[in-house]
């Protein structure tokens, strides 16, 4: 498989400004540098409005930076790229398509023959644990189930990097925890690289190899924290609490200052 070759995602001196009312410019992101390695799980953590979603959208190729670049190895990302999959907070499932048809969507776009499509869909719906719901429509599913479908829809076209924009933000705490566990499971099985945006410290500490803490607007990289605790992590353990405390302190003090 070509995925065996190690890949790096590079964000280099990235900045983004918006123009407000066509005049005043607002700085959204300033000088973001980030290197994400193959099969790494990186969380971008920051308060609302710090530009973390904008950063993710630029990495996805959905928006253009004012300056700086995003590259996968040597390929410049300035538009959506097959190597990058994205998952939105609102699931973004197509309500007129069944679960199977939603998962098959990306494959249809690339004219994958029906038989092959069906076997890939079967593989991924099993991975999502939703085999009995193949013919259901999104509105018949719970929020957690919908997000599972969105995740495997993105995986079905085999991207190397998965970009996730607060994917569990709209879910209740219990479902959220369950999906975090499932995501780690899928991540380990499929060996994807994940860039995950969240404002939840708990979520970031539970999931990430590294947490990139951004400052409030304009967003800069304030601190990068390595977490080498083994998984599955115990949210009630002393070590977990320590890391969480450390991150919270950063957010409340160093990273809240401009």
């Amino acid at each position, binding site marked *: 498989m070509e995925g065996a070759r190690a890949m790096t995602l590079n964000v280099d001196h990235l900045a983004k400004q918006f123009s407000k009312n066509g005049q005043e410019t607002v700085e959204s992101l300033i000088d973001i540098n980030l290197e994400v390695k193959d099969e790494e799980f990186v969380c971008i953590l920051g308060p609302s409005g710090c530009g973390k979603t904008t950063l993710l959208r630029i990495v996805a190729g959905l928006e253009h930076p004012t300056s700086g670049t995003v590259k996968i190895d040597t390929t410049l990302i300035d538009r959506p790229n097959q190597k990058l999959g994205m998952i*939105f907070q609102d699931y973004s499932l197509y309500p007129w398509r069944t679960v199977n048809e939603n998962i098959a969507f990306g494959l249809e776009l690339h004219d994958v023959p029906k038989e092959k499509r069906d076997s890939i869909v079967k593989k991924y719906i099993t991975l999502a644990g939703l085999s009995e719901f193949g013919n259901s429509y*999104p*509105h018949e599913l719970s929020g957690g189930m919908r997000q599972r479908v969105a995740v495997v829809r993105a995986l079905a076209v085999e991207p190397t990097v998965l970009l996730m924009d607060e994917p569990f933000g709209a879910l209740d705490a219990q479902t959220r925890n369950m999906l975090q566990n499932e995501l780690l499971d899928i991540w380990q099985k499929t060996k994807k690289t994940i860039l995950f945006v969240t404002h939840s410290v708990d979520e970031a500490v539970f999931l990430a190899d590294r947490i990139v803490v951004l400052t409030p607007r304009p967003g800069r990289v304030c601190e990068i924290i390595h977490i080498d605790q083994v998984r599955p992590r115990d949210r009630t353990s002393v070590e977990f609490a320590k890391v969480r405390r450390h991150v919270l302190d950063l957010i409340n003090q160093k990273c809240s200052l401009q």
Partner: protein
Amino acid sequence: MNRIFLKLASVQRRSFLKILLPVAIIVAWEVLAIVLNNQFILPSLQSVFAVLLNPTADILGNGNLVDNAIISLERVIAGFLVAAVIAIPLGIWMGRSEIVHELFDSVMQLLRPIPPLAWVPLALAWFKIGLVSMVFIIGMGAFFPILLNTLDGVKGVKKTWIETAEILGAKEHQILSRVILPGAAPTIWTGLRVGFGIAWMCVVAAEMMPGTNSGLGYLIMSSYNWGQVPVIIAGMIVIGIIGVGFDYLFKMVDRRLFAWRELER
């Protein structure tokens, strides 16, 4: 048990309410017709039903009710289709491109409030008397509801639906056919339903134009000239029934195909 009775009672009450007014109108009509005793103003129910119950009987040499209804329907479908074929692509184009929207917007806003019937003299001047004129007027009636709903539907397609497709590698034509069109379809369908309703009203008016010699509108006008009020009223009832029937068909299709619109939270 009690609850079932209550529910039954409420269903009965509702259907009772629905037929209450029609029955009252029919009774009042019959009473008034007898009191007035003037069949040029209000003919008796019987005389109207006599026309309705013999829909294949020739009326004053103008053909029967059924044939004239079919002629009217053919015209309305022709005008409606022409309007849809222009309005849907234009609406999608305007919905997708801000430039195109700006470009067409002012002209659309100006033309929209002009009632279709105000086009009658121009239609006659341009296309003379005949099918083309009628199709033009009917098309004018159907055009704007279809256009505006298509525009609305396209603009209402969720941004993340489109972005998801882009991320998954969709080309522009695939986004159009697999995201925009199905996403906007329920609203476009509403436009078609409203457009058809207006087109149906327009056909009857269009058939009252001078020189027409068939269709329900003509039948009504001609019956007026001959003082056949029962035929006028029978014709109006047929127009109403056909209008309701088509509206119902549109709604049925809507419920079948686009149930997801209501169910999506």
